[in-house]
């Protein structure tokens, strides 16, 4: 099970980046009481039956890992959110994309720690794939938006460690408000 809320976001964002999407969007909002996240993509999506089965931990489409019997990403998230007084919702359409929305109630004693948000955004922005990624971040009165294309334009290849170091510095500075 993931330790922090940002780990769930990394996991779902990684799915979105592998979905064949041309656009991936992440919205990460929080205040003193709640954390609300949306991860959406315009990738391959799922039909109704496949979507229902995606929430079963003992189901996987077998494409990523032939022979495997489990698929834990979405079921872990649903369980964690719902058992802590939060919420979980997924919408998906075959050929159109998927949107995962979830929230955690920070006042609940079982709510996981939020974790390192700029660190998570760094990892998400640098996931491989030719897609555009937009990120909207809000924390109380702080808010900022960044997109993968503008960062590539400023830094070049984001996978180079020299770019990663600067991007990390940039994202941390955005959190300063």
């Amino acid at each position, binding site marked *: 099970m993931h330790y922090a809320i940002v780990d769930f976001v990394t996991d779902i964002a990684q799915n979105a980046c592998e979905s064949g999407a041309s656009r991936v969007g992440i919205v990460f909002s929080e205040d003193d009481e709640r954390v609300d996240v949306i991860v959406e993509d315009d990738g391959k999506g799922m039909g109704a039956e496949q979507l229902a089965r995606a929430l079963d931990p003992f189901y996987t489409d077998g494409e990523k890992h*032939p*022979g495997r019997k489990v698929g834990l990403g979405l079921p872990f998230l649903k369980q964690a959110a719902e058992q802590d007084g939060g919420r979980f919702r997924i919408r998906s359409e075959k050929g159109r994309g998927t949107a995962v929305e979830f929230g955690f109630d920070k006042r609940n004693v079982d709510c996981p720690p939020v974790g390192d948000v700029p660190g998570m955004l760094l990892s998400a922005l640098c996931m491989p794939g030719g897609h555009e990624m937009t990120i909207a971040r809000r924390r109380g009165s702080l808010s900022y938006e960044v997109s993968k294309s503008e960062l590539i334009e400023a830094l070049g290849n984001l996978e180079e460690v*020299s770019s990663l170091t600067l991007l990390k510095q940039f994202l*941390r500075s955005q959190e300063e408000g």
Partner: protein
Amino acid sequence: MARMTLDELRALRETKRQDLARRDVEGKDIQIIVGMGTCGIAAGAKLTFDALVDSIQKHGLESKVIIRQTGCMGLCYVEPTVEVVFPGMPTVIYGKMTSDAAEALVQKHLVEHALLDNHIFDRPAADILKK
């Protein structure tokens, strides 16, 4: 630290690029691939990713190394996993790569050009190799 603008980021990039150009003799031929599947993330792969970035910078190797992320490499029992592709050395998949182990990996594999003992788990499991 004040919030940085994209223009400031660009300017910083230019300054660093000039610094790095002087050192950039061998090209970017070292690849490090971090497993970011559900299993990897649950085991702390994001901390490993951060530790690798910091440690590579500390050793002044940032102009030579590319860090990629991938899904599960098929070695869920020894996550976090990190694959290292280094010219002239065998390609190795390391397991149980906590952030401490990641620092040891940079020192041993990238700096000393030797393999890091007790963390070698070789190639991915056969079930995930692409045909």
